[in-house]
């Protein structure tokens, strides 16, 4: 009889403990708010770093964070926004696919009371996103253009690989570069084509450019993925010593290639810094802050063989 009472008491204690534990953990889950990280493409290591860093910082700050990959497709991006609005997310850290095409998604989130913080890529609006943290691509490419003239010289043929045509970064980079290089009439751009910020496409475009223009001295690429693709094409054609390659992003493989003398220079964009700051902005918003500057330029530094030892892991060491 005594044993039965003991068993019953033990069962009650265990059941109560189990119930308390379950309630506690669901209370903790319920308290965790959700932040969405919507990235234009996870098919590029640079954007993977951007997305993963934003997610990690949001988790550090006490949120549940999920990455949505738009695969450079505005329709997929729109579907992500529908889902995250319905899913009760409290903020969006957003790397848009299209400067104009993404505005409607941001406006939808805003209408639903969800703040959107753009990272790296801009939307052409000053009243949809809560804030936009943007690499100063133009200034970075002014510096790259100056280094281009210094290393390539004031005469010769060169080519340019543009990024995605609908993205402002493509044109800010191109215009910054040309604001310098076009001042030297001896430097002639003989080919300019989009490589869509993609390594495979960059390789393919560079191959056809080399066939049409075998005498180019340099190629300016709107991002590092295309720079690596272009370099591969040059190696295959046996022209990697003849043609100087310039990239933009600060991707790890390109920084290493600069150290090895394969690529001449890139613009370091500090994706980790931008991603962390955007997560912190979202946290501040959720806690009540409202006065954010609409556009916040993030500086770009050029990485060359002279200073490459100071850079790595998507930032400054």
């Amino acid at each position: 009889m005594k044993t039965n009472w003991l068993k019953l008491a033990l069962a009650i204690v265990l059941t109560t403990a189990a119930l308390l534990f379950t309630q506690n953990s669901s209370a903790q889950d319920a308290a965790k708010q959700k932040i969405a990280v919507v990235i234009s493409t996870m098919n590029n290591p640079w954007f993977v770093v951007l997305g993963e860093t934003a997610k990690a910082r949001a988790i550090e700050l006490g949120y549940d964070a999920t990455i949505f990959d738009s695969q450079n497709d505005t329709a997929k991006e729109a579907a992500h926004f529908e889902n995250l609005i319905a899913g009760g997310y409290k903020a969006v850290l957003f790397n848009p696919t299209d400067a104009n095409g993404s505005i409607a998604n941001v406006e939808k989130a805003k209408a639903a009371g969800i703040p959107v913080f753009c990272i790296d890529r801009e939307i052409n609006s000053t009243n949809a996103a809560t804030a936009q943290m943007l690499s100063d691509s133009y200034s970075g490419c002014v510096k790259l253009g100056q280094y281009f003239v210094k290393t390539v010289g004031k005469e010769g043929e060169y080519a340019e690989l543009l990024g995605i045509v609908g993205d402002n970064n493509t044109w800010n980079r191109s215009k910054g570069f040309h604001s310098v290089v076009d001042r030297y009439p001896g430097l002639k751009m003989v080919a300019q084509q989009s490589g869509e910020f993609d390594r495979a496409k960059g390789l393919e475009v560079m191959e056809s450019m080399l066939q049409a223009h075998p005498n180019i001295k340099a190629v300016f690429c709107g991002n590092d993925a295309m720079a690596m693709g272009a370099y591969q094409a040059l190696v295959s054609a046996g022209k990697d010593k003849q043609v100087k390659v310039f990239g933009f992003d600060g991707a790890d493989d390109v920084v290493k290639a600069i150290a090895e003398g394969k690529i001449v220079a890139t613009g370091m964009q500090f994706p980790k810094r931008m991603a962390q700051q955007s997560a912190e902005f979202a946290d501040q918003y959720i806690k009540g802050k409202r006065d954010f500057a609409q556009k916040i330029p993030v500086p770009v530094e050029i990485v060359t063989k002279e200073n490459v030892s100071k850079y790595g892991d998507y930032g400054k060491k």
Partner: protein
Amino acid sequence: MRVVRWFIALVILAGICWWFPLFHVATMKTATAEKAAVTFNATVFAETYWTNQLLASFAKTVKADLLLPAIQADSGAAKIKFARSLGLSASYFYFVSGSGHVVAVSDDEVSLAIMPASTNTEVSLQTGLVFGNALRDGTGLLNTSDYPNSQDFNDISAALNHLVEARVLPKLREQAKVGANMSFVGCAEVDDETTDLKPLKVIPIQTEVQ
């Protein structure tokens, strides 16, 4: 009866089309003019900005004979007190004016000694090709958040740089002779304190030989 029904239906349809037209007809000339009005023209903007805002803002400059000793004493404190920077940028700008005497002239710069009895180059007026955003961002008059498309904001930089090259530099190159006294107003970008502060590299907006 059927004719009347058709007539009423047509009237209703015409009314709907009147209030909610399916298309507008415009001449090519008007359409082109409307599009041009919507497209931001950085060259036109820069011209107006130069005359109406920039030239009227010189009172906001810091005097070089105040700034240079401040930099010499503590460049960090001088930055906090007199400089402006954008976003998370580590580089910063001074909107500066002053006068001095010309100690050297080269293809790309006019070197000025500013402090009394000094013969050192303390300010270098840049007279070569003008690049970057010092003129746009150095004064604090223009704000990137006011521009939906950053391409427009960046085009302003290029347009202002061209204005300096066209309006300021030819006269400066012609008038700057060693020994001459000269006043100036301009913007300086400090990207690397080890090279950009001594001398302070200023892109001139206005210069006068006294």
